């Protein structure tokens, strides 16, 4: 009986997955519409065709294909070695007014989940500040935090934690 229930649950869940995938994919800013009052911007736009600039963004020979900024322990400032990466994306945003990004800050998993969420936000905000100073428009960038919830590496120890202290740059529509 339990087995049967388990199977039917799996069927239900996979049905869910296939139905929800479509809207989710292209929807980095879902819900931000309601936040327009907070200074906002609607990153929506939802053009049907895929803009040509994605080939440039995904060219492995371009610095634009690099999307992660890593941090020292308990630090939120963008290290010198990631400066060019961040500035390159900033210039790209400045030159492609229709492009927009979501910056996801992340932390390691020590301590309060909500406090870590706030720390991750600080990391994403530091990248956003650098980008807007370099000419990207505020409306092109949404900085958010995933806190400790989406670790890139699992486990304990500095080699794991250092990979989780990062900000990821995601382009809308990718």
């Amino acid at each position, binding site marked *: 009986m*339990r087995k049967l*229930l388990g199977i039917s*649950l799996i069927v*239900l*869940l996979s*049905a*869910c*997955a296939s*139905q*929800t995938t*479509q*809207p*989710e994919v*292209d*929807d*980095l*800013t*879902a*819900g*931000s*519409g*309601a*936040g*327009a*009052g*907070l*200074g*906002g*911007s*609607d990153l*929506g736009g*939802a053009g049907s065709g895929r803009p040509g600039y994605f080939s440039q963004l995904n060219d492995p020979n371009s610095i634009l294909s690099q999307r992660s900024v890593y941090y020292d322990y308990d630090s939120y400032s963008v290290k010198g070695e990631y400066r060019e990466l961040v500035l390159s994306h900033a210039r790209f945003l400045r030159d492609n007014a229709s492009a927009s990004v*979501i910056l*996801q800050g992340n932390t390691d998993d*020590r*301590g*309060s*989940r*909500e*406090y870590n*969420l*706030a*720390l991750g*936000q*600080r990391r994403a*905000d530091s990248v956003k500040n650098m980008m807007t100073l370099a000419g990207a428009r505020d409306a092109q960038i*949404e*900085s*958010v*935090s*995933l*806190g400790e*919830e*989406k670790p890139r590496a699992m486990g304990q120890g500095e080699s794991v934690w250092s990979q989780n202290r990062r900000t990821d740059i*995601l382009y809308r529509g990718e």
Partner: protein
Amino acid sequence: MPMSINWFQSIRAAWILLLCLISAYSHAQLNIEIFGGGASRIPVAIVPFADENKLQQSITRVIGDDLQRTGLFRLIDPAGLSPHAPVEVVYGDWVNRGANALVIGRVAAVSGDQVEIQFRLMDVAKKSQLTGLAITVPTSQLRAAAHRIADVIYEALTGDVGVFSTRIAYVLKRGNKYALQVADADGYNAQSIIEYTEPIISPAWSPDGKHLAYVSFENKKPIVYVQTLATRERRAVASFKGSNSAPSWSPDGKRLAVVLTGQGGSQIFLVNADGSGLQRLSRSSGIDTEPNFSPDGRYILFTSDRGGSPQVYRMAVGSSESGNAERLTFEGSYNVSPDYSQDGKSFTFIHRNNGQFNVAVQDIGSRQVQILTNSKFDESPSFAPNGKMILYATEINGHGILSAVSRDGQTRQHLTVQTGDIREPAWGPLPTWK
């Protein structure tokens, strides 16, 4: 207009997901282990009720487990004696066995699926009945009836409100699936409210116990939702640009304190429970997060790093400027996740010392701090609605489990699940009939 097609699409997607999940039940049961216990426990004998062996669910076992978990009672073995009515009680037998109180009763099928349970709590020294109750329930509600009886016994013997009929909420991570679950306070009857492949954190009970607010990452960023338990209907109440997190209900259930980042930094805002009427509450250049309303609604405790390290602060809700916030914690460089006791006189929080994260309690008036646990990674402490126990998440062998500790630190218990990680517990309010 900001009401983009995307927004509607995501709402629709959420609905499809919800419809799919309405019947998702978890069979995970929580087991209870007890450590230590107070020195002066009340000796109670519980005689199996007449004819309860005909039921699928033992009533008296549930009552005994409930009482034992508090650490306030010692169960006396009734072996060999089986009175079910006051006239059958030979008090001398129970005096000899060291029992101060005696629980007796009987069950009887009434009609169809209904069962009547009669119970009496006898004072052994005074040879008289302390209290009693007769309740009729469907067989599916036998555990609930047992919790209610345990509440009556607890209240008669301790003078405090019983919390055995309350519920808890927590997040269960199994594989790459996250489930927001609600269970009875003893961990039974766990039921998934929503399941997803993206993280869920910070569940918060509405004061009437009918809704849960929580943070979901299903749209690539944290968004605060409020979900109605009975209908499973939900809505985003804070879905602004940036991150939205850390919901806490006002005691009247009309508003939520939330943390938003759209105006720079992580700051505390108030929003109506329907998502309208946004109002900024804190104003600092640092992090202000983890708001928690006082039971009278006048104050908010929160975590802030404005002084250089994360500490617990208190601000008045009316003044609307956290510049006037008062720092409450001073010991150590990391004090987070405050949660008020129901009387508003103390709060529980997580205190870091030597790399360990432990549950602590601080008396607001005297500033006295007591550290209640000695584990390594405790998180999310939550007071029981009678202020006698604190539910929290901890880690054993790399797995997240729920634990509870008595307010005085004397009794601890683990509530473990067979597989998966449990985290982010929140103890629900007293049921409305209490």
